[in-house]
């Protein structure tokens, strides 16, 4: 069974083989469009593309992570994880999900790399202690994370960094970054890197990006942080249903006041929605059940770089990250000392100036006539 003979069948063919009708396929495409945050008018193009798409090999590497990204993926409902791994991709290496362990697991990775050289996708969750860090900080099968990453991406078609740790260094990289954690794009320079940030990312965004690559065989349009515009093109704030309250100046002041109960804006409670680009407000979480702002908690800004160091989670976006009256007082005190010294000098100078002033005599004036 270990022998692999990659299928030459396209997605359309394998679906039809499973008894999926053309209407079913159309529905599949409609759902795919919705998942990729593409307009329904794209459905025909998606159908055409999917008729040609093949199940790509995917190698999922986990480094300094918490497994939240994988957990998130298991919550995906359109497509479901089972549909994804049975019908859409071939998930050939994934610590948390794969049956094999130890050497057998590592062999699975090597086999997939060899059989699909130049074509497989690498997905990474977790940050990586950089080449200058102690390699012992994080190892798998006796290899440092850095070595394994570089070896695996060597012949990859593209790399998808999933979660804020892999995209931006995330929690391990938070100040003071004790293990020298780095992001995938810090390390991988010769391959396309797509960043799917979030702590964890919305599952549909992970699957949507995979679906996009599968459907069109190329990367989606990316923002300045290499994040797909379709999901990260708009801020939480811009799409937040509580936005009208922001505009009206109605804010919840605490978690259980009238404003909180009526769904007023959470700006004062520290919502980072204004500076956060993600799709939570439209896609929401867990089969559209809710999302943090709907549940009454301010957005943590988890899809943004350095969000752990972006000031307290309960401080408004406008509050400086190290704001404290103490700093201002200290600066003021320093100012008073310097000011006092300068002023004392000025005072002395005035006295000298007065002393230097020479009285005018009438003779002197007369001399000017």
């Amino acid at each position, binding site marked *: 069974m270990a022998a692999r003979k990659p299928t030459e069948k396209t997605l359309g063919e394998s679906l*039809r083989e499973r*008894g*999926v*009708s*053309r*209407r*079913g396929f*159309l*529905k*599949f495409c*409609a*759902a795919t*469009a*919705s*998942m990729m*945050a593409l*307009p*329904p*008018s794209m*459905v025909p193009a998606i159908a055409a593309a999917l008729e040609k798409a093949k199940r790509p090999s995917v190698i999922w590497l986990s480094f300094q992570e918490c497994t939240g990204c994988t957990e998130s993926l298991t919550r995906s*409902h*359109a497509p*479901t994880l089972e*549909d994804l791994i049975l019908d859409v991709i071939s998930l050939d290496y994934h610590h948390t999900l794969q049956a094999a362990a130890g050497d057998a697991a590592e062999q699975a990775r090597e086999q997939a790399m060899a059989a699909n050289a130049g074509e497989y996708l690498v997905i990474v969750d977790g940050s990586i202690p950089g080449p200058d860090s102690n390699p012992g900080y994080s190892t798998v099968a006796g290899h440092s994370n850095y070595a394994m990453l570089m070896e695996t991406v060597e012949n990859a078609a593209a790399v998808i960094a999933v979660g804020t740790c892999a995209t931006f260094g995330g929690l391990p990289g938070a100040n003071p970054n004790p293990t020298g954690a780095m992001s995938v794009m810090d390390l991988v320079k010769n391959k396309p890197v797509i960043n799917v940030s979030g702590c964890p990312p919305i599952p549909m965004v992970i699957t949507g990006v995979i679906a996009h690559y599968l459907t069109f065989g190329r990367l989606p349009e990316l923002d300045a942080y290499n994040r797909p515009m379709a999901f990260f093109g708009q801020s939480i704030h811009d*799409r*937040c*249903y*509580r*936005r*009208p*309250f922001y505009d*009206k100046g109605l804010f919840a002041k605490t978690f259980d006041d009238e404003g909180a109960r*009526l*769904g007023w804006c959470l700006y004062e409670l520290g919502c980072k929605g204004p500076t956060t680009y993600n799709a939570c*407000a*439209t*896609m929401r979480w867990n*089969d*559209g059940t809710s999302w943090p702002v*709907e549940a009454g908690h301010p957005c943590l800004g988890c899809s943004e770089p350095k969000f752990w160091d972006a000031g307290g989670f309960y401080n408004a976006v406008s509050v400086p990250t190290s704001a404290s009256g103490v700093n201002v007082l200290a600066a003021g005190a320093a100012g008073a000392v310097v000011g006092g010294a300068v002023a004392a000098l000025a005072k002395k100078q005035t006295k000298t100036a007065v002393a230097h002033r020479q009285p005018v005599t009438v003779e002197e004036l007369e001399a000017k006539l």
Partner: protein
Amino acid sequence: MSLLDEIPVVVETGSAAPEGDSHRHGNAEPVLHEVRHALARLISAGETTKIDLKAMPFGPGDLEHLLSVLGTGEVQASVDALGPTRVQETAIPGVWLVDYLNTEAHRLALHLEIATVPEILCPQPQDLADAIAALDARLNPDRSDPPLAS
């Protein structure tokens, strides 16, 4: 069981929302206006439009409000492919609600379609091309080629 029935409040839909609070359904109105434009295009140019309601930044109650404004029309249809797809005409002729569900009845997508007939109800061109052959096969059961759903 739940004591919920003892809570003196209606559970279903957005009707529990107090009226008169102007923030409510803030994002339903723009969609309704879009529907109006789409209807105009359908009438004047025959152009159909699909709106992905899952991509809308709806707040709690917005979707319910939208659907209650559109109302329920006379036509209902169901397509059984990769789980059920429910098609419901709204009280506005030409405006259809198409609800794509997976086999576990989780919603995959929810579209408003402004069209004379929603696309998923139309036979697919390739199937149509095979239609006569399929009928012939049924007329002459001796010949092989079983009728395919696909």
